[in-house]
């Protein structure tokens, strides 16, 4: 199932612009340290998790998360408080893609943690091991196209609404709904294959 090349390495058809105030509207939102501090405390975990689910190793996600908030710190006055999460997630997706390209350029070995692909399908007992479960999850996600995976992760794991996803990705709501449907089909097909595999979870 693992394709060998992470879908995130494939370029998106279109790179969405960051949801910030337009150039003529810069510096119109408060950039107080308290706001920034609250943003970091509130959104660090979801941002990090998103970066992990789009294929970064833990160390890469740590670095990328800091980069996301450094970008945010520089642009606080441009970020609409109502769209902070959209800004952060959008920035995280950009930085995640960049991290993948850097990794490819450096020809680094794939992260040891993520190459713990199974030789045989694990049983339910093994699935209690969260790390193992995450490796399986990442494997299923890696088989999706980038477009579908991002929508799936934002909806099913980060629990954004479809309207919020449309905002993050700058897509029409109908496109988000369509991608989510297709992503769910892919995901559930993958899960069904796992369940049918001899020795796999029932």
């Amino acid at each position, binding site marked *: 199932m693992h394709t060998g090349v992470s879908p995130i390495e494939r370029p998106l058809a279109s*790179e969405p*612009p*960051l949801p*910030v105030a337009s*150039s003529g509207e*810069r510096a119109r939102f408060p950039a107080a*340290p308290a706001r*920034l*501090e609250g943003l*970091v*405390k509130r959104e*660090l*975990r979801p941002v*990090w*998790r998103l970066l*992990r*689910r789009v294929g970064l190793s833990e*160390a890469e*996600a*740590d*670095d990328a*998360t*800091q*980069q996301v*908030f*450094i*970008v945010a*710190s*520089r*642009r*606080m006055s*441009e970020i609409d408080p109502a769209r902070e999460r959209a800004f952060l997630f959008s*920035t995280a997706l*950009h*930085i995640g893609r*960049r991290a993948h390209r850097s990794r490819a350029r450096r020809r*680094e070995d794939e992260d040891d943690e993520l190459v713990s692909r199974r030789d045989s399908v694990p049983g339910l007992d093994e*699935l209690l091991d*969260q790390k193992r*479960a*995450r490796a*399986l*999850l990442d494997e*299923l996600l890696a088989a999706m196209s980038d477009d579908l995976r991002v929508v799936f*992760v934002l*909806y*099913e*794991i980060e*629990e954004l609404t*479809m309207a919020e996803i449309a905002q993050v990705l700058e897509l029409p*709501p109908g496109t988000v*709904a369509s991608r*989510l449907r297709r992503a*769910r089909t892919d*995901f*559930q097909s993958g*899960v069904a294959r*796992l*369940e049918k595999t001899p020795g796999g*979870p029932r």
Partner: protein
Amino acid sequence: MTDPERLLDSDGAGLSAALLRAGREEGPSEKLLSDTLLAVGVGAAVAGAGAAASALAAGSSGAMLKAGGTTSLTTLAIKWLGIGAVGGVVTVGAAVGVEDRMHAAPAPQLAVVAPPASVEPRAAAPKPSPGPALAEPEPQVAAPTTPPPSAPSIKPAVPSIAEETRAIDQARRELSAGNASGALGTLDTYDRLPGPHRLQQEALLLRMDALVKAGNAGAARVVAKSLLDQSPSGPHAARARQVVGSVAQKE
């Protein structure tokens, strides 16, 4: 738009839900929060107020002890990385690179300039245009012209390259003497200087080495990556790669 029921809610006991739950429950280390707060320049206030004390104790104080505990080395080092917090004088290449790509503007490339004997007052160095949405507010200094006779004598706000060179030399001497904390302090001072920072890559190299010497490998790696992003084939790229590689091995 009506949102469908999430898989985790509709299939709470199945394999789909187990996998999604595992993904949802994963989280970063406590240390990342404190490091990130420091990186964006609000961590010091948090530490001072005693908030997030456990995270900071686990992360920053260890590095400070390694550095000798004379100053808040980690705070200084990481805070330096919080670009906006110190006046936007330092660029974290990775972040800028991403932004630059998004805004189709070239990343700033600051050449290391051999210091002439005296160039004060200097003409404004050629500076690449920053990305339209990313321009850090920096003083714009026009090339010096002969002041009118009645104009008061005002020292230029932008330091000369000789002043920059002195700061870099001082940091280098401190580092050579084993005073990593002092070197980092001097580099912080350098970063706070107004102007284009013509010796910025030298400063990055010294900061990277000072952080390595201080035992703060994580911050050293971030600086090394920044150096590589700014100048992947520059004179310090090999050293930066060495640091990135050695830190990765330790981890």
